[in-house]
């Protein structure tokens, strides 16, 4: 079930990007997450790996799913978890990102989980603090735990990642989920396809190791995994695509397009979904949809990442 590699451990101080993660590191995290997923199905889910540690969720961008997933992961491992709602904090009073980082750093957290609307912001912050930093999404750059939970979901459902054909469909241009997944899936030996209208494709995306399609029917041909992306509301009306109706017609996942993929193809979506925009409601609830499993694996993967980072934390 797992790839056997000599260096199957994750020994980094931060998790900022999927670029450069080795197959061994990813496998190590997925193995820990597998066990965490089992624990999470027990009555007693609590462990003490992070007992005495402080975890701060610092979210500069609204998020329900990821923030609560990290919160639960931290609490199940015994950490003290604090959520910082930045929309109502001093950042909106003109404090710079770096000042905020320094202020939080002075409170001596052990792990900072950061989401920010600008690419590179989490990396900038990580340079200024003493604790471990987890990137919970920075602009259109990276969202590492999302790609890891997707990989875990795929591995548990299919028994492997290597050799599978994965189609990532939708707003690739603005998607950190797509970038992170391209990195992880390529590293784990999957074949990655990108399906999007040309207005939602970033420059030179083929150079990242993906085959590019703007015809969804062709792109889904013989795929093992269909991974849909959310289309942001502000991009629906004319600036990138002319209308939700037209988008749904050509890039929405309905039963007809899904039939192009393999008969046992899985349906994935990082959420939150726009039913009837990028995905038909009945497809989202399809027997082969693993969208709810993704949420469940989200907690497990975040526990695995926290546990792996905690092993690197100083004990004195």
């Amino acid at each position, binding site marked *: 079930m797992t790839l056997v590699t000599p260096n199957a451990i994750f020994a980094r101080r931060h998790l900022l990007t999927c670029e450069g993660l080795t197959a061994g590191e990813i496998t190590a995290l997925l193995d820990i997450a597998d066990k965490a997923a089992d624990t999470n199905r027990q009555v007693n889910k609590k462990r003490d790996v992070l007992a005495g540690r402080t975890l701060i969720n610092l979210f500069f961008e609204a998020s329900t799913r990821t923030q609560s997933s990290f919160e639960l992961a931290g609490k199940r491992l015994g950490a003290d978890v604090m959520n910082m709602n930045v929309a109502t904090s001093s950042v909106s009073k003109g404090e710079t990102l770096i000042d905020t980082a320094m202020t939080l750093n002075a409170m001596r957290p052990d792990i900072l989980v950061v989401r920010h609307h600008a690419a*590179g*912001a989490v990396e*900038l912050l990580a340079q200024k603090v003493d604790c471990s930093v987890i990137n919970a999404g920075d602009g259109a750059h990276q969202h590492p735990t999302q790609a890891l939970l997707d990989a875990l979901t795929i591995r548990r459902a299919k028994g492997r990642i290597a050799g599978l054909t994965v189609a990532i469909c939708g707003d690739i241009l603005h998607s950190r989920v797509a970038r992170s997944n391209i990195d992880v899936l390529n590293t784990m030996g999957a074949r990655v396809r990108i399906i999007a209208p040309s207005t939602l494709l970033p*420059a*030179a995306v083929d*150079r*990242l190791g993906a085959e590019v399609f703007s015809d969804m029917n062709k792109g889904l041909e013989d795929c093992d995994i269909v991974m849909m992306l959310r289309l942001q509301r502000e991009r629906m009306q004319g600036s990138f695509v002319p209308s939700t109706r037209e988008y749904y017609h050509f890039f929405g996942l309905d039963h007809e397009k899904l039939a192009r993929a393999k008969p046992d193809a899985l349906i994935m979506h990082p959420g939150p979904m726009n039913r009837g925009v990028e995905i038909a409601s009945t497809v989202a609830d399809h027997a082969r949809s693993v969208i709810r499993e993704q949420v469940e694996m989200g907690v497990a993967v975040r526990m695995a990442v926290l546990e792996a980072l905690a092993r690197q934390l100083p004990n004195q």
Partner: protein
Amino acid sequence: MRKNQATAPTTPDTVFINARLVDPATSRDEPGGLLVRDGVIADIGSHLRRNAPEGATVVDCRNHVLAPGLIDAQVYTGEPGQEHRESLKTASHAAAAGGVTTIIVMPDTTPVIDQVALVDFIQRRGRDNAIVNVHVMAAMTRELKGEEITEIGLLKRTGAVAFTNGKSTITNTRTMRQVLNYSKDFGALVVHHTEDPYLTLGGAMNSGEVSTRLGLPGIHKLAETIVVERDVRLVEMTGGRYHAATISCAESLAVIRAAKAKGLPVTCGVSVNHLTLNENDIGPYKTFLKLRPPLRSENDRMAMVRGLASGDIDIIVSSHDPQDVDVKRQPFAEAADGAIGLETLLAAALRLHHNEDIGLLSLLKALTINPAKLFGLPSGKLEKGAPADLILVDIGQPWVVDKANLKSRSKNSPFDESKMQGRVLRTLVAGETVYQYGGENG
């Protein structure tokens, strides 16, 4: 704009002996000497190599390069309005340390330099506070809004050496046509920043694999070429003198080359950053390398170097743009554009010479006589009667840039901690030493 004209008769002559005279205007590169009297070059040649005239102060150049001081035609300061970034005085000290004896300052200030009184103000401030020559490039539209033409005739008569829309591009084709058409009557030079703001909207760096990996919105290079191409057509239509301020890609260069081949009055510049750095240098979001136009691919950088060597690119500028730490230490897309460059202009440019990409004479030509001719300045050459704006340079001396030692008020150098080869030993403006290397590190 010479210094101390009144005291000149009592100043003794200065003679520079044992110099390697490098003068791009005459393609001179030979051992010799140079005599300075009353702030101007009084004599030059091999006969002065060892023989100092009686009574003259002797400077032994020890075979180092004696060349015309550099002319930097794109310098942003914060004066007036944002002196915390840079004043004319601090910019001039940075210039002197970098071997730049003339700076042409941009009108992107608060207020915008779009009126006669403001041009006069900058000239007076330059005369009183700066230690190098300061010239003004005035706004060609009011408040740089790209709508109404400024008083180009009167501004030119006051001393504006060229007209520009600063960091912004005139999108209204009709306005641009009128500017070129009107400025033609005065022989005024129009200097244009060429980036289509609609195509570059929200962009943070060159569009390509690197921007995609970093998740940063890209700026396609053709957003520049499209404007250059349009402008060249308007030059063809109007006959106005046109200079593309800083081009950055091979496609724009091809347009300029074709325009020159047609005999149109078109020239262009390049910033030293685009000759020596590329998009990969941005690495993990280094905001000090966030520039406009953005750093391009290595292929485009090489095209710029070839364009310079072939003479299709006329001048090199530093594009000196002081920004304070607060606006630079931000997430990349939100950080301010721009980098300082006066003090590293020559040393960075010399990389091309040391790499054998371009000869010393051709390189210095784009920093001296070419901008002098373009902007109608008397300097930029080693010639009897020309102002004694001179630099003495040890072109082989290695050093490492340390921002703590930079004289600019802002420290946003893209070359911080970079290795350089080539040190300005002494800078003279109108015969007066305004900078002398004291052996400090960096």
